[in-house]
């Protein structure tokens, strides 16, 4: 039901935005306003769901329906909402702590079920709201309030976790590239099924510059590669470098020799490999669309069963249930 498009302003709620000045969340919010406005969805049909964290304040700032729930559980709420009413466009704002620490299980299950919910995971590699503890995406050795000697646990790669769980849409986007965010959000919206978007997000207060090595203006062209469907995998300040996959190895080659990227492959193994380039300082980090495939969507099939049963048997009557099995009369 396409209708006259919204403007960004239509989507701004009357609540004062309360993130720290300079926080990457502002840029994400702005990109979202712009992208959502263009979708042709009525604003009353958006539902933004979140857990707890700085990132999870997001719903308050969008003038649609919103539910700021409890820490880590947003995917479960979103599943209930979307399954109960598949007319709604359900979006989820979460953090690396909310979505991958306490909420890791709901996250992998919403991905497994392929519930049509669009997930933006604001990865700032830190707990912002609780003032600076390390998170499951913080690199080994990260000194934080709770790890004064440096963290010792290996971090998750959020995209790997998502792919391992069977995600049908996986993308990554940096909070300092509004255009890229906008495009990624719109791709997520267009996907039929659960979309997982990791946003590299800068927390100016507790983890400032966490991604500077990758995405600072000075280095971004060399340190990121933007994967786009059907496009050669090229990068570099002059767009002269490329990647090629050979025998399960990613090779750096010249742009001409770069492979063309296909996010629609049946096997997620290639995306899995590319998601993990961030381990290698000599490689560009993959951003953009890593995976997008079609698969059964949970709530569609749930509703199909309801519809089929109703069609076959007719809408059930309470009396039939109650007066069903062996009854007898007393008079």
């Amino acid at each position, binding site marked *: 039901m396409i209708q006259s498009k919204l403007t960004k302003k239509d989507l701004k709620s009357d609540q004062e935005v309360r993130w720290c000045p300079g926080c990457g969340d502002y840029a994400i919010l702005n990109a979202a306003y712009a992208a959502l406005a263009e979708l042709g969805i009525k604003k009353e049909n958006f539902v933004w*769901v979140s857990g707890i964290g700085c990132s999870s304040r997001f719903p308050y700032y969008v003038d649609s*329906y919103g539910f700021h729930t409890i820490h880590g559980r947003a995917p479960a709420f979103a*599943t*209930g909402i979307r399954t109960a009413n598949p007319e709604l466009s359900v979006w989820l704002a979460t953090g690396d702590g909310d979505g991958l620490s306490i909420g890791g299980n709901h996250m992998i299950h919403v991905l497994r079920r392929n519930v049509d919910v669009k997930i933006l995971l604001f990865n700032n590699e830190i707990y912002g709201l609780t003032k600076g503890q390390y998170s499951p995406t913080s690199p080994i050795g990260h000194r934080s309030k709770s790890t004064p000697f440096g963290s010792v646990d290996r971090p998750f790669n959020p995209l790997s976790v998502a792919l391992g769980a069977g995600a049908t849409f996986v993308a990554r986007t940096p909070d300092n590239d509004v255009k890229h965010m906008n495009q990624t959000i719109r791709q997520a919206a267009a996907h039929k099924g659960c979309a997982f978007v990791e946003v590299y997000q800068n927390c100016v207060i507790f983890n400032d510059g966490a991604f500077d090595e990758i995405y600072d203006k000075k280095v971004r062209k060399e340190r990121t590669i933007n994967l786009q469907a059907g496009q050669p995998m090229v990068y570099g300040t002059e767009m002269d470098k490329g990647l090629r996959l050979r025998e399960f190895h990613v090779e750096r080659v010249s742009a001409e020799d770069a492979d063309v990227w296909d996010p629609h492959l049946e096997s997620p193994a290639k995306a899995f490999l590319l998601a993990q380039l961030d381990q290698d300082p000599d490689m560009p980090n993959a951003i953009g669309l890593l995976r997008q495939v079609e698969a059964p969507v949970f709530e569609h099939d749930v509703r199909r069963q309801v519809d089929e049963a109703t069609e076959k048997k007719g809408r059930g009557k309470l009396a039939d249930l109650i007066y069903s*099995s062996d009854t007898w009369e*007393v008079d």
Partner: protein
Amino acid sequence: MTREIGTELPLQQQESVVIRFAGDSGDGMQITGNQFTGTSAGVGNDLATLPDFPAEIRAPAGTRPGVSGFQIHFGSSEVHTPGDAPDVLVAMNPAALAVNLSDLKPGGIVVVNTGNFKETDLKKAKLERSPLGDGSLEGFRVISIDINERVKKALEDSPLSAKDVQRCKNFWTLGMMYWLYSRPLEPTMNWLATKFAKRPELVEANQKALQSGFNAGDIHEMFQGRYEVPACDVMPPGTYRNIMGNPALGLGLMAGSELAGLDIFLGAYPITPASDILHQLSGYKHYGVVTMQAEDEIAAICAAIGASYTGYLGMTATSGPGLALKTEAMGLAVAVELPLVIIDVQRAGPSTGMPTKVEQADLLQCVFGRNSEAPMPVLAASTPSDCFDIGIEACRIAVQYMTPVVVLTDNYLANGSEPWRLPKLEDLEPFEVEFRTDPEGYQPYSRDEKGARPWVKPGTPGLEHRIGGLEKEHLTGNICYDADNHELMTNLRHNKVMAVRDSIPTPEVFGPESGDLLVVGWGSTLGAITGAVDRLQKKDASVGRMHLRHLWPLPAGLDEIFSRYKAILVPEYNMGQMARILRSEYQSHSFHSYPKVQGKPFTTTELMHKITGILES
């Protein structure tokens, strides 16, 4: 088909009888019990039943952990419980005998299948000697029959394999019990014909076994007489069916949602003894019911709250350990003020405890077990069929007051059964929900006269708003840290829940209007309390009884009622949780707590004993 022969044997009338069928899990005791139940209901008895499943999925055949039991209490007057001690024990093997004998009434009848008392059978049951020969059965009337052999003979001509023939044992036994208690064979004959319609050889064999067992009694081989338990004449007229608590609750929720004009979304995670509610509702798809087996109890309740948010009637069903996991989300449901029905089929604990045993010890958890002040109504069903009414009541309160509601039942209610007089659907009062759609003057946290806030479906234009777990400003619902607002909101939430009291009746007192003792119960103790108090009242004891179905808030008028009795006795399957609540609410009365924490229900006898003790002191 059922020849009424053997009528020359003395026929003794009995008011009520308790029979326990016990055998190996593979012996079909549940079917036997259910058939006896159906037939007895058909002849107009009041009754109550209780199965006793083994804790293991499939314990090795013939062992004690493998024993499966089914007890039925049927009578010509009102029957309140599945019965204390059985009058008759049917023991299909040594393990069944060993496990159940101590429960049998002194002088009771024990029917033993001697065909299963070989050396190896005894060994599996960890018996050194056969109880048939060592005096264990002294003081009982023992009927020893080699049922294995009888069935074999009866089905000599059957095309079934020897093994399959032996699987007809239970129907042979059932036939014999039908003879003994003068029940008709038709209902079971018909049931067999339908059940095995596709396998006529099984219909024939089992029907033959049934008839042969009946005849075996008939031709005086074993019994000195037979009994008759006439139809119960105090059962109110109506259409009845036999029902267990879990399915009754499921139907109550279905009825409640229909009265509210809503569809159900049940988010659940399997757990004994609540899983059957999920199983049941997942079969009701053509009623618009959506069920979701979530990844855990937390996701289950969160999905249900999400569904309520969209305008479904969200529900979740669990048992104690699962409820413990839901408490954080329950607090959120209180904060966002959405309807939600939370079912807790209690079991014995703490922790994993004894999942198949009865307890009522989640009461305080449900009433108080949340961080901060997060009040919500708590209800409890008192009999299997009352689960239906409580299911409706929970839906009503949830939608009328925009609140989560807890329903407590337990193991004993869930699996116990009794005749249920079916309601006339047109008598059920609807409480249809109206969703707010008018943007004019809309405030997410305005309240109606009940204290409920408006329910708005996402997708409604012009009413966009945000909710969440942070404290909200009165009316606007905006995040608010103001001190006075917080106190106001805390009071509004509290008052709203307390206002439920205005919509519930003061429970009836049965017995003298005032007197020495009032027995106050809640939940599944109803049957046992009724049995005990009724009997004592017949002996003119000054004791009344009252049963609570609304546990939080407690109904109005209790204080006044309590003041008419010298003392109040509160029997419950925990360490005195309701007694604690009553003491804290009604300080000026004298409450005696009567805790029982054995994973099994009160017997009428022990309750009578306790009451008499108090009356005498």
